[in-house]
């Protein structure tokens, strides 16, 4: 989690008010994400720190979701919650609004009701199997039917709805054979019950529902948790901005209400809300998240700035050029939607299996029916056997085969700080053979690093630099060791540099054309990743800066190569910076100076060549490429829209999350295939018995439970390290260094 990173920005009170919502009894409520909560002590610290604030009515911290819900009296300004939490050592930012997850609530209710029905009907069934007399059997079957009917309608509607929508669109999915099997089995059993027949499959119907709902609920809960965790990451873009009216009044407006021509006051450390033009003020801009350029740029009046650009050193007055819906950000969103078409062409492995499986099973049932009808002439007996074929082959194990593995894989990734936003992403990731990286913010941390850490005059430069928020100044301060000379009368000239006095000398640090009386070397001025220190106008030292590699970048590239993936860099930055990083990492394929549309084109070319690409990127300019790639990954400090577009989000700084995720996805694919093999094997054994008319309700119930348990047990092997010869070694490595888990 990069809460204290360079992009972190505390929300203003206006922004908190905008994110809050009114709840009952004159109370407003806001949900803050507090990633530092990790124990009961933190719960108390957080709640007590907030309760001490005068206007806070209630604060309830949540250890599971690492957040706190604060309520305060409506009508007063929001309490200083972020500051109060910072005082007790907890970084906090605005989280996703608390929103009820209706689908999950419905699934859990369906599951509870199916569980209730399964246990009760099973009680009746056990006594029927144990040999209850005719009278009791009739009563028990009738009671089972009464319980099963409402449960089938209530808990089964998830499957009926999904099957119906698939059939209506001329497709088939796993829910089609499930729905047909459930309905026919219930109808047949109901008919037999009314006729006083011997066999009823109510227990099998509700048990099937119960098992399948377990898979569905776990699958949904996994995605909901990932969505919430991603939503709780600190927002980079502001929800609004301070506007200056024509009469000089200041009002805070949501970004959507900013119109072209309005004047925006942008403080240092804030991001530009909509595309705008600089009216007045001089500052430095960090465009790394927008265009991928790593070097900060000085502003000049009249210069155009894109939404999402970070203002570094001084306040600016801007004039909005376009509304939020027509800004750079909106343009990226439109390109993403267009690029996403490639995703929807991918067919889930479960649906591919169903497309083969459903016709096979249904024709087997039909053939059994026709065969028995002609052979024995007993239509009722033939129908009973056809239904038992449907029940015994009803894809209970198949329905669980995929979601259980994905849930276990997602949990394993979650423990290592990787969020899986979609189970389908896991399937696509396993097929990846090419990994494409963005440079700025992905391979590099986006923070510059001093190239010669032992440079002379570093102490003097750092003493000046301590007064600025410019990234180069911060890098100088970070590189300094030992005492620094005392510098007085420091002032910062945004876009130029810093000036101060050391004794009687005037010391300047910044652009060489401003720092030096007679700048001699033209290329030094042009070189943007360099800053100059001078005394009384004479050059003392030049400081050069590199992009700092993200931790684990080298190891990740090596591990990916070992796993058989080609690597490439697509960047919007200048060719010199990209070539340097590529050389340091040993990546031979790279392209620089790419626009967002160029990145999409490159990915589409790779796709046309039959490559399956994983795109790893963080910037706004990467967002369309993230959507265009076969599967995508973003760090947690990526631009908001990029995080929303990516299939995977990794929370920790290290890039070693990528090979780790890839190896888990590949292992999950193996286990899914094994599960399918298990389910097919089970069907191959059970089908002849069913067709021969030898399957009783007891046998059906047993077979269903055993095959489901086998599939679940196989999925759990994903947790127990790697199979094969590297298994023990991998486990030992994990025990020693829990962070370095990618080791293959």
């Amino acid at each position: 989690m990069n809460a204290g990173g360079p992009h972190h920005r505390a929300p203003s009170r206006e922004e908190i008010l905008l994110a809050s919502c009114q709840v009952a009894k004159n109370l407003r409520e806001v949900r803050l994400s507090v990633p530092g909560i990790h124990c009961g002590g933190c719960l108390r610290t957080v709640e007590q720190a907030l309760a001490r604030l005068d206007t806070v009515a209630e604060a309830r911290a949540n250890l599971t979701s690492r957040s706190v819900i604060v309520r305060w009296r409506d009508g007063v300004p929001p309490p200083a919650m972020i500051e109060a939490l910072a005082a007790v050592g907890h970084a906090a930012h605005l989280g996703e609004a608390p929103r009820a997850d209706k689908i999950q609530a419905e699934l859990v209710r369906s599951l509870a009701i199916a569980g209730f029905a399964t246990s009760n009907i099973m009680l009746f069934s056990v006594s029927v199997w144990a040999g209850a007399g005719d009278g009791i059997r009739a009563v028990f079957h009738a009671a089972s039917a009464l319980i099963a009917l409402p449960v089938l309608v209530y808990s089964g509607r998830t499957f009926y709805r999904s099957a119906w929508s698939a059939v209506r669109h001329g497709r088939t999915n796993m829910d089609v054979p499930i729905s047909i099997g459930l309905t026919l089995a219930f109808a047949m059993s109901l008919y037999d019950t009314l006729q006083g027949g011997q066999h009823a499959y109510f227990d099998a119907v509700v048990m099937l529902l119960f098992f399948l709902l377990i898979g569905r609920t776990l699958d949904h809960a996994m995605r909901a948790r990932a969505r919430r965790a991603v939503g709780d990451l600190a927002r980079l873009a502001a929800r609004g901005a301070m506007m200056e009216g024509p009469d000089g009044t200041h009002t805070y407006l949501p970004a959507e209400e900013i119109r072209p021509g309005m004047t925006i006051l942008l403080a240092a450390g804030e991001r530009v809300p909509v595309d705008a033009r600089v009216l007045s003020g001089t500052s430095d801009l960090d465009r790394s998240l927008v265009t991928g350029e790593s070097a900060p740029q000085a502003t000049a009046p009249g210069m155009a700035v894109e939404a999402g650009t970070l203002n570094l050193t001084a306040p600016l007055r801007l004039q909005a050029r376009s509304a939020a819906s027509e800004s750079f950000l909106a343009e990226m969103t439109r390109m993403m939607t267009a690029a996403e078409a490639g995703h929807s062409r991918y067919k889930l492995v479960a649906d591919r299996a169903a497309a083969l499986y459903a016709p096979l099973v249904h024709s087997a049932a039909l053939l059994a029916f026709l065969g028995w009808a002609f052979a024995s002439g007993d239509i009722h007996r033939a129908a009973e056997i056809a239904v038992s074929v449907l029940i015994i082959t009803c894809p209970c194990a198949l329905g669980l085969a995929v979601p259980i593995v994905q849930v276990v894989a997602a949990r394993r990734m979650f423990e290592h700080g990787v969020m899986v936003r979609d189970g389908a992403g896991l399937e696509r990731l396993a097929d990846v053979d090419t990994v494409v990286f963005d440079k700025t913010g992905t391979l590099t941390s986006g923070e510059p690093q001093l190239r010669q850490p032992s440079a002379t005059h570093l102490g003097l430069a750092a003493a000046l630099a301590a007064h600025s928020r410019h990234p180069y100044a911060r890098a100088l301060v970070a590189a300094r060791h030992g005492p620094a000379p005392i510098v007085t009368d420091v002032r910062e000239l945004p876009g130029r540099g810093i000036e101060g006095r050391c004794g009687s000398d005037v010391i300047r640090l910044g652009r060489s054309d401003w720092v030096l009386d007679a700048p001699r070397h033209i290329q030094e001025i042009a070189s943007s990743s360099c800053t100059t220190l001078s005394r009384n106008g004479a050059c003392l030292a030049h400081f050069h800066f590199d992009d700092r590699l993200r931790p684990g970048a080298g190891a990740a590239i090596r591990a990916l190569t070992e796993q058989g993936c080609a690597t490439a860099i697509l960047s919007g930055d200048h060719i010199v910076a990209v070539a340097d990083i590529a050389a340091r990492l040993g990546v031979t394929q790279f392209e620089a100076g790419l626009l967002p549309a160029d990145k999409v084109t490159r990915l589409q070319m790779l796709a046309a060549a039959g490559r399956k690409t994983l795109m790893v990127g963080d910037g706004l300019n990467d967002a369309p490429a993230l959507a265009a790639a076969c599967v995508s990954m973003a760090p947690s400090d990526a631009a908001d829209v990029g995080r929303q577009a990516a299939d995977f989000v990794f929370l920790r700084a290290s890039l070693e999350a990528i090979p780790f995720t890839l190896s888990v996805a590949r292992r999950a694919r193996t286990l899914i295939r094994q599960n399918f093999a298990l389910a097919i094997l089970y069907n191959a054994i059970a089908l002849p018995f069913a067709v021969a008319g030898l399957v009783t309700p007891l046998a059906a119930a047993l077979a269903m439970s055993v095959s489901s348990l086998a599939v679940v047990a196989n999925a759990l092997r994903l947790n127990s390290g790697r199979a094969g010869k590297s298994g023990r070694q991998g486990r030992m490595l994990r025990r020693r260094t829990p962070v370095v888990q990618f080791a293959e």
Partner: protein
Amino acid sequence: MSVLIYLIPISLALGAAGLVAFLWSLRNGQYQDLDGAAERVLFDDEDGPAG
């Protein structure tokens, strides 16, 4: 046989009571913070839960 006339409804009613209790606890937000609930039991505030 006659004993089943009231034993079956009783067993169903007991099961249904359990189901209703579960649905109530779900609606009441009892499962919102399972980790936190495990820790809160150790708080020894004099005046009830904080806030």
